[in-house]
C-alpha cells in the first residue's frame, strides 16, 4: 500500500472533523476522495502532508508514519492544495523552480507541462487569474516527477478545454505507474479518472469501493411506452420505484440485463429509454441514505 489510514480521528476544539476513518490507496491506483464541503477531505489530506496532527489512529505513506518533519517522504510527493496560494511577488517560473530545486530535480517535465497547459510563467503570481494559479499549482506538483500525487480539487478554475488537458496529463501519470489520490467535487472527473473511490461525510467514511463495484450498484432507469399491463414487472427482482402514468411505465433496474429483456420481449413496446443512473444520483442516494 502507498497510503494506509487506520482509525484516524481529528478534533478542532470540541468539534470532531474526522471520526475513526480508514482507507488505503494501492500503488498505481487513481483513488477518488469524495465528499461535500466540510466533510473532512482537506483535513485528511493535511494530516497526510504533516500540516496537522491526528487525535487518534494512524496514517502512513509507504509504510512510514506521516509526520511534520518527514522530508524524505515529501521529496517523493507532489501536492496540489485546494484554493492554492503562492507568494505573490514570485513569478510562475520561480514558484515551480523552487519546488524543483528543493528536490534537486530537472526541469524537462516542467517544459512539457508548460506547453500542454499553455501558460506564460513570467507573470507574477499576484497578476495571475485563478485558472493560471491552478495551472502553476499543477505544474509545481507534477514537474519533479513524484511517485505519489495528492491533488485537492485539481480542476477548480480550469476551463473545460484545460480540464481535458489535465485529464490527459493524469492518464499519462497513471500509465507511468504513479499513485494518485484526488479529492474532488466534480463527479464526472471522478467517474472518468478513478479506479477506486472513498466517500466521506461529516468526518466518516461511508463507502470505499472500486469503480467496477460502484458501477454495479448503479441502477438503470427504464421508461417504456406501452398499452400492455406492466404491473407484473413490480414482482421482478431488481426492479424498484415502478410508476405507470399516461401509458408510460418507469422503473429502476439493477441486475442481469438478460432477465429484464426476457420479461419485456413478449410486450408490444412503442418506445423505450434506458438511462444509467448518474454519479450525482448515486451520491445523492448515498448521502441521503447515510444521513
Amino acid at each position, binding site marked *: 500500500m502507498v497510503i494506509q489510514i487506520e482509525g484516524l480521528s481529528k478534533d478542532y476544539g470540541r468539534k470532531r472533523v474526522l471520526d475513526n476513518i480508514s482507507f488505503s490507496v494501492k500503488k498505481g491506483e487513481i483513488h477518488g476522495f469524495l465528499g461535500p464541503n466540510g466533510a473532512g477531505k482537506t483535513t485528511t489530506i493535511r494530516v497526510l502532508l504533516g*500540516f496537522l496532527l491526528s487525535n487518534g489512529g494512524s496514517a502512513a505513506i509507504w509504510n512510514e508514519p506521516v509526520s511534520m518533519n518527514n*522530508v524524505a517522504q515529501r*521529496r517523493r510527493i507532489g501536492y496540489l492544495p485546494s484554493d492554492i496560494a503562492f507568494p505573490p511577488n514570485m513569478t510562475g517560473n520561480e514558484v515551480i523552480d523552487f519546488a524543483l*530545486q528543493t528536490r534537486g530535480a530537472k526541469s524537462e517535465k516542467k517544459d512539457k507541462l508548460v506547453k500542454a497547459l499553455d501558460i506564460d510563467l513570467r507573470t507574477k503570481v499576484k497578476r495571475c487569474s485563478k485558472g493560471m494559479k491552478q495551472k502553476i499549482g499543477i505544474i509545481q506538483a507534477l514537474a519533479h516527477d513524484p511517485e505519489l500525487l495528492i491533488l485537492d480539487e485539481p480542476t477548480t478554475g480550469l476551463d473545460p478545454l484545460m480540464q481535458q488537458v489535465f485529464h490527459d496529463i493524469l492518464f499519462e501519470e497513471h500509465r507511468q505507474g504513479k499513485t494518485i489520490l484526488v479529492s474532488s467535487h466534480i463527479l464526472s472527473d471522478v467517474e472518468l479518472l478513478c479506479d477506486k473511490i472513498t466517500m466521506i461525510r461529516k468526518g466518516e467514511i461511508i463507502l470505499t469501493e472500486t469503480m467496477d463495484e460502484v458501477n454495479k450498484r448503479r441502477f438503470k432507469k427504464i421508461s417504456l411506452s406501452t398499452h400492455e399491463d406492466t404491473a407484473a414487472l413490480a414482482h421482478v427482482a431488481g426492479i424498484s420505484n415502478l410508476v405507470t402514468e399516461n401509458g408510460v411505465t418507469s422503473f429502476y433496474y439493477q441486475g442481469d440485463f438478460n432477465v429484464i429483456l426476457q420479461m419485456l420481449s413478449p410486450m408490444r413496446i412503442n418506445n423505450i429509454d434506458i438511462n444509467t443512473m448518474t454519479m450525482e444520483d448515486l451520491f445523492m442516494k448515498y448521502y441521503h441514505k447515510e444521513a
Partner: protein
Amino acid sequence: MSAVLKQDIRKHYLSVIVWAVVLASYAFSVIYIFPNNNSNMSEVVSLLEVLPEAFNAMLGQAIFSGTVDGWMQMNFYSMLGLIMAFYTILTVCTIVTREIDTRTIEYTLSQPISRATLILIRFLVFALSTLVIMLTAFVSEWGTYIYYGYDMDITVHFLLYANFFVTNLMIGGIILLISVFMTNYNRLLMIGIAVVLALYVLTIAIQAMNADPEPFVKYISPFSYMQSDSLLVSGKIEMHNLWVPVIACAGCVAASAAVFRRKEIKI
C-alpha cells in the same frame, strides 16, 4: 537548503537596498549639518546644559564632548537602535506568521524542507540583511567623517555597530519566538511594535533615573545592551554587551525552531 536561501534573499534584497540607502543618507545628513564652528557648537552645548540632568542622561553623556561623535550620539545613534528594531519587526514577522496568514505556508511546507531548517535559514537571511544595512551605514558614516576631515576611531565605531548589530539580533530572536505562537500577521506587527516601543521607553526611563539600578532592572530591556554613549566616551565595551545578546538570540531562535517543528498549520 540553498533553494530556500536563494528564495529568501530574492524576497528581501530590494527592501535591504532601500533601508541601507535610508540609513546611510541619515548618517551622512547628520554629519553634514554638524555645526562645525565652535561658536555654533558651544550654543548647542549651552542649550543642553540648561536642560534637566535626566534629559542629558537620556541622550548620553558623549554629547558633552562637543565633538562630531557627541553630535552623532545625540542625533543618530540614539535613534539607530529604534530604527533597526522596526526593520527587525517588519522582516522577522514575515518568516512564519505572514506565510500562515496569507496561506502560502502550505506551498512552502509541502516542499522537502524541514521546518527547523526553514526557520534557521530565514533568520540567517534576516541577520545578513541587518549586517548589510548596518555596514552600509557604517561605511557611509566613515566616508563622511573622512570627507569633512573629522577624526574617527575606527575600532570604537566598529564596536559600536557590532554592539547594535548583536542587540538587534536579540530583538529579532524575541520577535521570532513570539511569532511562532501567532497566525495573524497584522496582530503580530502591532504586538511587535508595542513591545519594542515599551522596551525603548523603559530603557530611556532607566537612564533618566540616572541612578545605578540593580542589574536585573538595568538589563531587562534589549536596548540596555546598546552602549553607544559610554563606548564613545571611554573607547571600551563591556563584553557582556556583546555575548549576552548573542546567546539570547541563539536561545530564542532554537526555541522558535523547536516550537515550529510541532506547530499545527490550521489554515
